[in-house]
């Protein structure tokens, strides 16, 4: 448990630095540190699938962000905050904090999810019958490609739409120029 608190403090400090620092590159690196801490946390919670996906996506996103930050000239943020905006964000954060304290009492104990208490729930059935139902020894794969394949289909559709949007918006030549090379 001490390890989790150390990681949590590390991630919180990295998040504060990422918000507060003026240098954009340092902020990006701090965001990477948060993701690395999250990946380590997943690994210690015995979820290697999520840890692997987290670290890989984090590294890729960090590379893209650093590349986008370095190639621009504007790497230092200048300017002060507005007074009204600061007050509003502090009030909203305080409200969220109070609501979170109320919710904290209703949360189950750390490491003991609600679904593990009742034996007839879907997650317990997946764990008990996953191998004989699907034949896959990795139970995560047997869930997301067999029991809940609709979810994966939706995720694939989301990715497909994202790619279409990225390639349409960020194409290097405008439509007029593609159709009419003389312009």
């Amino acid at each position, binding site marked *: 448990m001490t390890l989790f608190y150390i990681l949590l403090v590390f991630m919180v400090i990295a998040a504060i630095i990422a918000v507060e620092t003026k240098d954009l590159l340092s902020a990006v690196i701090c965001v990477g540190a948060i993701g690395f801490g999250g990946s380590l946390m997943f690994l210690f919670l015995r979820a*290697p*699938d999520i840890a*692997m*996906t987290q670290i*890989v*996506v984090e*590294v*890729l996103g960090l*590379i*893209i962000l650093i*590349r*986008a930050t370095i190639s621009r*000239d*504007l790497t230092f943020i*200048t*300017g002060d905050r507005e007074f009204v905006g600061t007050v509003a964000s502090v009030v909203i954060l305080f409200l969220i904090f109070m609501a979170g304290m109320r919710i904290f009492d209703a949360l189950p104990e750390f490491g003991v999810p609600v679904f593990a208490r009742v034996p007839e729930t879907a997650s317990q059935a997946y764990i008990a019958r996953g*191998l004989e139902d*699907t*034949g*896959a*020894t*990795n139970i*995560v*794969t*047997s869930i*997301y*490609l*067999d029991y809940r*394949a*609709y979810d*994966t*289909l939706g995720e*694939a559709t989301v*990715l*497909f739409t*994202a*790619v279409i949007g*990225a*390639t349409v918006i*960020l*194409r*290097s*030549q*405008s439509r007029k*120029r593609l159709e009419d090379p003389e312009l």
Partner: protein
Amino acid sequence: MSGMTVIVKTVSSWVKVLIFLFGIYIILFGHLTPGGGFAGGVILASSYVLLMLAFGRRFVEENLPSSIASKLDCLGAFLFALLAILGLVLGGTFFANFLYQRYLPGEPFELVSGGTIPLANIAIGLKVGASLFLVIFALASFRYDGPTSEQKPAAQGTGQKE
């Protein structure tokens, strides 16, 4: 844009093969060990990102043109949908694991096991790898295109003030 130094180019030309192989391993053994289509696909895309950073954008564009990458993307999505519809036709329900239930049960802990799950992993890996490559390629090749010389410094000036 022509890439980094000779040291980076040499090292990355050795390492890229290992990264690509590791991605294929993660995809193919996704139903036995941690990993799967998504993580493996991201690793496949990251090997091309390494090439793009080390050798420059043109080199990657010649190796894997974006037209072929978009075809691979569509192929992955099509294979995944095809598996779902084959489950409807042969197994009775959408996304039914018809291979495991009827034709090819396989032994647990073997590579050929789990029915349609390894095939779906391959489709997802192809799709995720190609589409992330396309996104990064679009981000890398994005340039300001239009009336450049007059308007761009003015736009940057207002951006700094805000």
